[in-house]
């Protein structure tokens, strides 16, 4: 069966982002970009399913600018067989992304779509669930274990109280949590091979999806800064401060 893995190009998780002086957004010029960590986990899961013989083809897809080809190449170096770039310069919101992904799902007919549970830039955690709703598929979000069994998939989910396991009919949508797997590193030969794998570009307009956001970002500010307090010399001093100064115990 075929798996579709939507991935996103984001600011590398090690970068401490800075808000632009004009409050229009965050500084993205000359900032290191990478594949969203949760998307790496999604690619890894697809690759493991292929290694187990459950999956026959992995298609990576991204919606973004030309630069996002880099992340598609990474996905192919990690094991995706081919990839699709839906090109747009628009700040697409998750609903529009999900609509574009739906168009790809209709064309590719995957049995599984594996996404990250959230992108570490927008932190929205919406795209997978929206895609599932638009396509009428069942969803297993925040997955920490995925077991495909015939025409069903069992997904163990990380929830506030612990774990929940659900069973979904295929085709289904899965979004990955951190502990689903530990992604591998791409080897040099695989990086070379990935350069020859097919990468198709589709323009957003061809899909007939309106990417213009209906939610306007009015401004982006730095959070209230928290200044470092004081160092205490002993546990005794700490307890006394907590009791008498902060009055929290």
């Amino acid at each position, binding site marked *: 069966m075929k798996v579709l893995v939507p991935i996103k190009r984001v600011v590398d998780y090690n970068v401490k982002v800075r808000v632009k002086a004009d409050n229009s957004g965050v500084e993205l010029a000359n900032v290191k970009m990478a594949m969203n960590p949760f998307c790496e986990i999604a690619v890894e899961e697809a690759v493991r399913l292929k290694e187990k013989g459950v999956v026959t083809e992995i298609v990576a897809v991204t919606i973004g600018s030309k630069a996002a080809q880099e992340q598609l190449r990474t996905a192919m170096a990690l094991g995706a067989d081919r990839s699709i770039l839906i090109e747009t310069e628009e700040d697409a919101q998750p609903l529009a992304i999900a609509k574009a992904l739906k168009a790809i799902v209709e064309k590719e007919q995957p049995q599984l779509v594996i996404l990250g549970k959230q992108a570490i830039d927008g932190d929205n955690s919406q795209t997978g669930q929206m895609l599932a709703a638009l396509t009428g598929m*069942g969803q297993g979000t925040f997955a920490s274990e995925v077991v495909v069994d015939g025409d069903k998939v069992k997904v163990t989910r990380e929830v506030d109280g612990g774990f929940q396991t659900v069973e979904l009919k295929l085709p289904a949508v899965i979004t990955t949590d951190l502990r689903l797997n530990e992604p591998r590193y791409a080897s040099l030969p695989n990086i070379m091979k990935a350069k020859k794998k097919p990468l198709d570009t589709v323009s957003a307009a061809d899909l007939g999806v309106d990417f213009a956001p209906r939610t306007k970002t009015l401004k982006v500010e730095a959070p209230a800064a928290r200044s470092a307090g004081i160092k205490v010399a002993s546990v005794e001093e700490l307890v006394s401060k907590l009791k008498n100064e902060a009055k929290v115990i």
Partner: protein
Amino acid sequence: MGILVYAEHDNSTIKGATLNVVTAAAKIGGDITVLVAGKGCGAAAEAAAKIAGVSKVLVADNDAYGHQLAENVADLVAELGKGYSHILIPATTTGKNFAPRVAALLDAEQISEIITVESADTFKRPIYAGNAIATVQSSDSVKVITVRATGFDAAAAEGGSASVEAVDVAKDAGVSSFVSEELAKSDRPELTAAKIVISGGRGMQNGENFEMLYKVADKLGAAVGASRAAVDAGFVPNDMQVGQTGKIVAPQLYIAVGISGAIQHLAGMKDSKVIVAINKDEEAPIFQVADYGLVADLFDAVPELEKQI
């Protein structure tokens, strides 16, 4: 038009986060209706009717909603939600699971994890693990919003007297089913509701050493949390993780023990009122946000702390 608030509950009681969402709804302004969907959830509905500021409670009591399966709950909320100007859902794992489905079904762009209400269509929400705060304005006719509990005070759980109305809508999408769940049991307060949280990181070295934190927690009536490193290493279960991808807490007092202070961890706790850090490395970034920092070996400091409180 009115606001529909989705209640998080365990069929018998209303979960704390619901009360914070009611406060967010009150800030937007308008009649507040609370929807309690579950199986055998009459007691939870009664409790919801007592929340101050709520004018009506809708109860959808049906097998289909027993385990809060996203496919079924979203169909219900999307159908009932059409008549409201806003649908407010707690940003818990339950809420985050089904809310985007509701938004997609209503062709609305969801606004995730708001922390303030600026006006009926404008909200603030953290992006980039809380390193930036975006002010966003929605032009959707129905606004589907998840609410981060730490951004709002809890509404009073008593004092209201809303009417309770049963809704007879059974939605079973038929694509998913519940298999099992494994919920952690603890006599300590819930992480997201506790006034004091004490968390351990990789510095704790193993699960047994967390006993030291449990002892302090029990003396203080605190909840115990952890960094991702401590969870990944198997010291403690996943439901204890605090951070960008774990739980967001903002207690009166947060004590970080053997935690370095990575941005992803800070994202989950930096709105705490008072932060204490105990770390043997005086350069650890956690000290940059700590009100009181103690540079010490945790294996000396924590037992000492337990003695002195």
